[in-house]
C-alpha cells in the first residue's frame, strides 16, 4: 500500500464516497430545505398578497420569479405560504394517523384474537372503498373546510402502517429468540423493549416519513377538488384549482409553478425516507 492512499482526501473525509455518507448528507440537506421553507414563509410579509392591478398576470421575471396572478398578487409569496400551509396540514394529519396506526397495530397484535378481528375488520372496512371516495365522504361529513380535510386525511391514512406494525409484531411473537426469552422468564415489558422495539422502530420511522408525502398529496388533492376551501389562507391545492381556468388562456405559470414546488417538496420527503432506509436497513446498507 502506498502512503498516498493512507491520507484521506477531502471527499473521503466528508464521506461523500460511500453510500451511507451520501445518504447522511442528503438527509441533512432535506432537513435544511424544510427549515428554510418554513422560515421564509414566516418572514415573508403580507405585502406580496395585496391586490395590485397594475401588475396583474405577469409572466415569471426577475421581480416576480413565479409571476403574478389575476389580482396582481406575487405568486412566489402565495406559493411559499401555500406550501407551508399544505405541509402543516399534511404533517398534522400524518402525525395523528401514525399514532393511531401504532396504537391499533400494537393492540391488534397483542391483545388476543377478538381485538385482532375487530381491528382487521376495521382496516378492511376503511380500505374497502377507493381512498378518494372515503376522503370525499369524510370531508362531506365535516361540512367541508380545512378541518374537514385534516380529519379526512388523518382518518384514512393509518391503515397501511397499522397493517405493517401488526404483521411485524405477530412475526416477532413467533420468533425463536422471543420464545426463548419468554421461557427464560423475562417479563413481557422487557421483551417488548429489548427485542421488539429495535425491530419495529426502523420500519415505523421510515413508514412514518413516507406517510407524510402521501398525506400532503391527498390533502392537496382534496382541496384541489374543492373541499376544504379557505380562500384567505390558501393551500397549494386551492391555488391550483383556482388557476386551472387560466391555463386555457395561456397563463400557465399560475398552476404549473406552484405544483412544481409541491412536487419538489414532496419528493424530498421520499428522498429523506429512502436515505434513512439506506442508513438503517441492514439489507441494503452495505452498498
Amino acid at each position: 500500500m502506498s502512503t498516498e492512499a493512507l491520507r484521506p482526501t477531502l471527499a473521503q473525509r466528508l464521506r461523500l464516497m460511500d453510500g451511507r455518507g451520501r445518504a447522511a448528507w442528503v438527509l441533512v440537506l432535506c432537513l435544511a430545505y424544510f427549515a428554510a421553507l418554513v422560515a421564509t414563509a414566516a418572514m415573508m410579509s403580507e405585502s406580496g398578497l395585496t391586490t395590485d392591478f397594475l401588475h396583474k398576470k405577469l409572466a415569471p421575471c426577475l421581480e416576480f420569479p413565479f409571476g403574478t396572478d389575476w389580482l396582481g398578487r406575487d405568486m412566489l409569496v402565495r406559493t411559499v405560504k401555500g406550501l407551508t400551509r399544505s405541509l402543516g396540514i399534511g404533517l398534522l394529519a400524518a402525525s395523528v394517523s401514525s399514532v393511531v396506526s401504532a396504537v391499533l397495530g400494537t393492540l391488534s397484535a397483542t391483545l388476543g384474537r377478538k381485538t385482532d378481528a375487530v381491528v382487521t375488520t376495521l382496516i378492511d372496512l376503511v380500505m374497502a372503498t377507493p381512498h378518494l371516495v372515503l376522503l370525499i365522504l369524510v370531508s362531506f361529513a365535516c361540512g367541508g373546510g380545512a378541518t374537514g380535510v385534516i380529519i379526512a386525511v388523518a382518518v384514512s391514512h393509518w391503515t397501511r402502517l397499522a397493517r405493517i406494525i401488526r404483521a411485524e409484531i405477530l412475526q416477532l411473537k413467533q420468533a425463536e429468540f422471543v420464545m426463548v426469552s419468554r421461557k427464560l422468564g423475562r417479563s413481557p415489558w422487557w421483551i417488548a423493549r429489548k427485542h421488539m422495539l429495535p425491530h419495529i422502530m426502523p420500519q415505523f420511522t421510515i413508514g412514518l416519513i413516507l406517510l407524510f408525502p402521501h398525506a400532503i398529496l391527498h390533502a392537496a388533492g382534496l382541496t384541489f377538488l374543492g373541499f376544504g376551501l379557505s380562500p384567505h389562507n390558501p393551500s397549494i391545492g386551492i391555488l391550483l384549482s383556482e388557476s386551472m381556468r387560466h391555463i386555457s388562456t395561456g397563463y400557465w405559470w399560475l398552476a404549473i409553478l406552484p405544483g412544481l414546488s409541491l412536487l419538489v417538496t414532496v419528493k424530498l420527503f421520499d428522498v429523506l425516507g429512502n436515505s434513512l432506509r439506506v442508513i438503517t436497513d441492514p439489507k441494503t446498507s452495505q452498498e
Partner: protein
Amino acid sequence: MHAISLRFCMGKAGRLALILSLVSVLAFTLVSLSPVDPVSAYIGIDRMQISAEQEQRIIDRWGLDRPAPERFFIWAGSVLRGDLGQSMIFNEPVTTVIGKRFVTSLWLMASAWLLSGVLGFVLGVVAGTRRNSLTDRIIRIYSYTLASTPSFWMGLVLLAVFSVALGWTPICCATPPGVSPDDATLWQRLHHLILPAATLSVIGVAQIALHTREKTIDAMNSEYALFAFAQGESRTGVAWRHAVRNVALPAVTLQFASLGELFGGSVLAEQVFSYPGLGKATVEAGIRGDVPLLLGITLFSAVFVFSGNFIADILYGVLDPRIRIGAEEAK
C-alpha cells in the same frame, strides 16, 4: 390458499355482503353527520319549484324527517330492492347515472390500467436486469421523479403543453362540444381520451416500473438465479427464464388489487379535463351534497375494489403452482 371451489365462492360472497353492509353503515353515518339538511340533499335547488305535496311525498318516501337509524333502514331496504334513489344533480335515477358515467370512466381507467401495467412491467424488468447500466439509470430517474407526482398537476402540465401551447388535443370533455355521446365517433372519443389517459399512465408507469425493478433485482440475486448462472445461463437468459416468471405473478395480481387507486386517480384526472366520468360525478355529489348519488357511488366503488381483490386472489390460486397443486394435494 384455496382452489376454486363452491365453498370458496360462497365464502367470498359472504365477505362481500359483510363489507357492503359495513360500508353502507359507515357511509350513511358519515353522510348523516354532515351539516347539510337532508331534505335539500335529496331535492336540491328544485325545492322552490316543486309543490308542497311532492316535497312531502319525498320526505315520506325516504323518511327524511325521521332520525338517522330509521332513515338508514329505509334506504337500505330500497337498495336491496335495487332502487338507489334519484340523483338530485342529474335528475335521473342513481343507477342510470352510475351506469352511464361508469362506461365513460371505463374507457379512461382501462386504457390507463393496461398501458401502465404493461409498460411499467417491461421497463421495470429491463431496469432490474441491467442494474446500474445507463438504461437502468434513465428508467430510475424517470420513475423516481414521476412516481410521487400529484396526478392533478401532471394533468395541468399536459393540458398546458399539448392542448394550449400546441393545440393538438382538446381542452375538456369526452366528446367535441355539441356532439352527444352516442354520436361521437371512435376517433373523436380517443382524441379526447388521450390526455387524461396519458396523465394517469405516465405516473402509473413510473410507480409500477419502480416496484417491478425492486422485485426483479431481488429475483436476479436469488438462489435460483445464482444456480442458473452456475449452469452457464447468460444474464438475459436468467432474466427471461427465471426472473420474469417469478416477478410477473405478483405483478399481475398487484395490478388487479390496485383498482381502488385507479379509481382515485381517475377522479382527479377527470376533474382537470372535465371528463364526464364517474369520478367527476363523485366530486359533484360531494360538493353539492347529493346524498343518494354519493351513497350509490360509494357502494359501487366498494364492489369495484372488491372485484379487483377477488380476481387477484383467483389468479394467484390459478397461476401459482405452489398454491394450485398444494390445494389439490391437501384434499
